[in-house]
């Protein structure tokens, strides 16, 4: 229910225009919000659909690959300009992000710590490199956005990557410590 509402809001012209009016809002607010909508919509999936998906998504590998591919392609500067001009590409982008949100939610648990680490190990360094490129570039990489906007996006991308890294590391450490304690208790 919340997912449908969020999807409707994101798709309507006013919020869309506001989000896409600034480079950093476009990439760091709009993209995650579409993924969130996808994750919320996940709840309406019937059990049958979930089991079919899990057959094709063992250990969440396929799902994480989808998310990784989508986010990599969407970090190319050309996308931000193209979706402002071409509605078809905008529709594909939003659908891809929606699906990415759903698949991320379905794949995260089954992936386990090792696969999660591989996934983040690919995604987070890429975010940092792209962020640094956005900060360093003396030229505007997007025709529709200003240079200071671009630099702000770069800084926030790196900040977000750092935040995700620390959160996941803390969570993984806590899980491992708990498992160790459980194993110790089991031995007693």
């Amino acid at each position, binding site marked *: 229910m919340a997912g449908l509402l969020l999807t409707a809001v994101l798709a309507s012209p006013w919020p869309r225009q506001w989000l896409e009016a600034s480079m950093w809002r476009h990439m760091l607010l709009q993209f995650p919000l579409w993924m969130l909508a996808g994750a919320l919509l996940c709840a309406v999936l019937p059990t049958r659909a979930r089991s079919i998906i899990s*057959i094709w*998504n063992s250990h969440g590998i*396929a799902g994480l*690959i989808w998310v990784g591919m989508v986010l990599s392609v969407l970090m190319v500067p*050309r996308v931000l300009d*193209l979706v402002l001009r071409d509605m078809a590409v905008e529709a594909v982008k939003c659908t891809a992000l929606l699906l990415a949100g759903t698949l991320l939610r379905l794949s995260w648990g089954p992936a386990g710590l090792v696969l999660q680490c591989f996934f983040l190990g690919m995604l987070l360094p890429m975010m940092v490199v792209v962020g640094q490129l956005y900060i360093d570039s003396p030229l505007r990489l997007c025709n529709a956005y*200003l240079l200071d906007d671009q630099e702000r996006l770069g800084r926030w991308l790196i900040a977000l990557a750092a935040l995700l890294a620390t959160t996941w590391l803390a969570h993984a450490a806590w899980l491992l410590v708990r498992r160790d304690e459980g194993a110790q208790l089991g031995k007693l």
Partner: protein
Amino acid sequence: MWRTTLLSMLMVLGGWASARWLTYDFQVWTDEGARRLEVALRPVKAPAVAVQGLEVSAQDLSTLLATGSGVTVVDFFYTHCQSVCLSLGSSFQQLQAALQADRAKGSAVPVRLLSISFDGTRDDPATLATYARGLHADPTLWNFIRVPDAAQQALLLQRLGIVVVPDGRGDYEHNAALLVFDAQGRMVRIFDLAEQQLALDYARNLAGKLQ
């Protein structure tokens, strides 16, 4: 597990294919790069919008570009610009000097310069004339125009891929470049501001072939 492997491989291929489409085979990463590449592959015809200038009798852009059956090097600017348009102006001054030298040597080819203002509200023909005088523009070689109708100007900018972004301080950012048009009014090449000599040589070459 084989289903997951198959699906994963298909996704990777799909991602690779879309990245290739998006970046023209990993050649361009920005929309501006794509625009320049696309124009070289497929020239864009300028729409016949009505234009206005002081040394130019009111006519439409296509007729103006066809005058003298030559090649025109065009830039988009606005007179209040304190940044990139100033260097555009001095680039064009150097182009003009080169073309005048050609004429003096007797090896002139039909290449003209055209500066189009996209700030129609502030840049009326009188303002353009003052600006042109300031740059020592030779009206037989270098004209300044604007598109008086806002809707037609929007069409022109959109068709040629010019994106103007207000910077919140009364000025504009835009993807300034040197645009080369042939006598049929088609934009055939876009050169970067730093590629001034290349643009001149290309225009001369193209004009020479037309004779």
